[in-house]
């Protein structure tokens, strides 16, 4: 599932911020700095993840989504949790 989630996350970034250098994003590169996103735009992106994966990112988790790896890991867990509770 990881590669599928990863691909969808990258696609979501491209859709929402088409002018940003998504190709430069490695798993552990700092997400905001690499893409040139300010704090509001990072929240905007997280909201797009929420909509795209039908998950909820608690406010307290926002600050932890600092890299592609962290995003993939969080989304995978959230999707799994949503699936098991459904």
């Amino acid at each position: 599932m990881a590669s599928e989630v990863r691909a969808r996350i990258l696609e979501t970034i491209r859709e929402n911020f088409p002018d940003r250098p998504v190709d430069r994003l490695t798993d552990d590169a700092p997400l905001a700095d690499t893409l040139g996103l300010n704090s509001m735009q990072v929240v905007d992106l997280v909201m797009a993840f929420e909509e795209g994966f039908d998950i909820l990112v608690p406010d307290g988790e926002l600050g932890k989504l600092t890299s592609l790896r962290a995003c993939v890991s969080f989304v995978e867990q959230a999707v799994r949790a949503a699936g098991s509770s459904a």
Partner: protein
Amino acid sequence: MAQILSVGVALPARVVANAELEARLGQPPGWVEERTGIRTRRQAADGELAYHLGAAAARQALERGGVSADELDAIVFSTMFCDYVSPGSGALVQRELGGSRPVPAFDVRDQCAGFVYALSLADALVRASRARRVLVVSAERQHENFLAYEPTVPVFGDAGAAVLVGPSEREGRGILAIDIGADGRGAEIAIAGCENVDVFAPENRHHPELARALAEAAVKPPLGPKLYFWSGAEIFRAAVGTMTKSTRAVLARVGAGLADVDWFLFHQANLHINQAVVRRLGLDPARCPSNIERYGNTTSASIPLLLAELEADGRLQPGQLLLLSTFGAGYAWGTAAVRW
């Protein structure tokens, strides 16, 4: 049906550019615009209070509407920071206008949603035939209230705006639907203290995220009336989600689609919030005018200020469908569909 008959504005003369504030905050050039989209804002002069700006805007709205102060039936004043704790500014505007009849004048306190809340009251008064001419006056002198917490310093500007509301003069024209709402669970996410109560003291905190947000922002309680604190991430999410939902709800109520709207007038709080709303709704940015770059966030005056600009430069045409939507502290929000 009720209709907006005319619009007026009053802006303080002093223009404050980002450079002045960036120098004061020790931030590099471009810091403010990158975060907010704002380049300049107006600041009221010493002694120039919100009700002065409101009264000046009201006079303009009356003049443009061809109505005298004597013909008014009610004044609804909206603001975030009152000029005086008592009395409300509605009565002060009434005095300034000099009408000969003692009409009802009262204040609405719903921050950035204040204008749409006040408009909904004016709409209700007219629809119920309790009034034929109602002034909605939205004015803010607020820049001093944002000096203590760095992220808020460059955001807010001072302004006054007013609309005159009366019975619709043409079939199908006017205020078609309004959605106003509040969700007090977000009440502490954008908040200012007061002289008597430290709203940030542990015993007064109710929002589970407030302590974390305060810690992240390195803000140290106690926080007084001159410290307006917000947690930007929470506000952003709530604003984008609510404005998107409320816009869809109001359009559904009037049987219109997004494509039927000629102008979307979104509250000018932060350029990034509005860009996110526009993208989620799939709107053409050209139909979503913006003036935040020049005036900053003028809180309750924001939407009528934008309305006045569209009218002044000829973009507003009779028969066009407008969608006004705002979200702010409270949380409180308001959305209105208006056939111009």
